[in-house]
């Protein structure tokens, strides 16, 4: 599953963010977007030296300042369930379009929808069936 989709799945879970300057932010992920901008709540901010700490009720981190994120192990199991659900939803949607009658669907066809869900984040580099 793509990195950014894994991040979306991790919403509501605690994680650790390290910035390029070495500061670390431990908190619960509220939301994220395609630029990796994050909002966290109940955050503990640590200085790069590890000697100063702040507690922030909520914070916003701009994506381009992030070095890496550390997410809990449970996310991987959640990801698998999400993929199963997404696949079922896609199959349900395709069956619905097929039943509408060939004449109306001539322009759209099945091929436009088949790859639509899977290619959200990565075009050429989508060689990941993780």
């Amino acid at each position, binding site marked *: 599953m793509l990195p950014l989709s894994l991040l979306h799945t991790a919403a509501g879970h605690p994680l650790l963010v390290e910035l390029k300057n070495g500061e670390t932010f431990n908190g619960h992920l509220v939301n994220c977007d395609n630029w990796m901008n994050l909002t966290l709540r109940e955050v503990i901010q640590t200085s790069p030296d590890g000697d100063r700490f702040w507690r922030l009720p909520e914070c916003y981190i701009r994506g381009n300042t992030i070095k*890496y994120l550390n*997410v*809990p192990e449970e996310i991987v199991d959640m990801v698998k369930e999400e993929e199963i659900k997404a696949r079922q939803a896609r199959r349900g949607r395709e069956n619905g379009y097929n039943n509408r009658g060939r004449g109306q669907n001539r322009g759209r066809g099945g091929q436009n929808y088949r790859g639509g869900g899977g290619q959200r984040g990565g075009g050429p580099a989508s060689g*990941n069936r*993780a």
Partner: protein
Amino acid sequence: MVVLRDGRKLIGTLRSFDQFANLVLQDTIERIYVGNCYGDIPRGIFLIRGENVVLLGEIDLDKEERTNLREIPVEEVLVAQREEMEAKQRLEKIR
């Protein structure tokens, strides 16, 4: 193994990537090398932002077995690393 711009070496299973080379590593360990010793710190799941990656490569498990490096406990390697940094800083100051 992935090497980051800050010099960290992370070893894990590459689960996914995207067009920015953002990576997802599973069962990651951070390996610190000092001299001909190393120490491992288990880290779990990492989502690495692509621009921070210098390089990555597949580990040859056969070569891993034949390495001359010793594994030492984490506490020792961290102490050794700090000593190495302090020595480097002293050299820099002299320059």
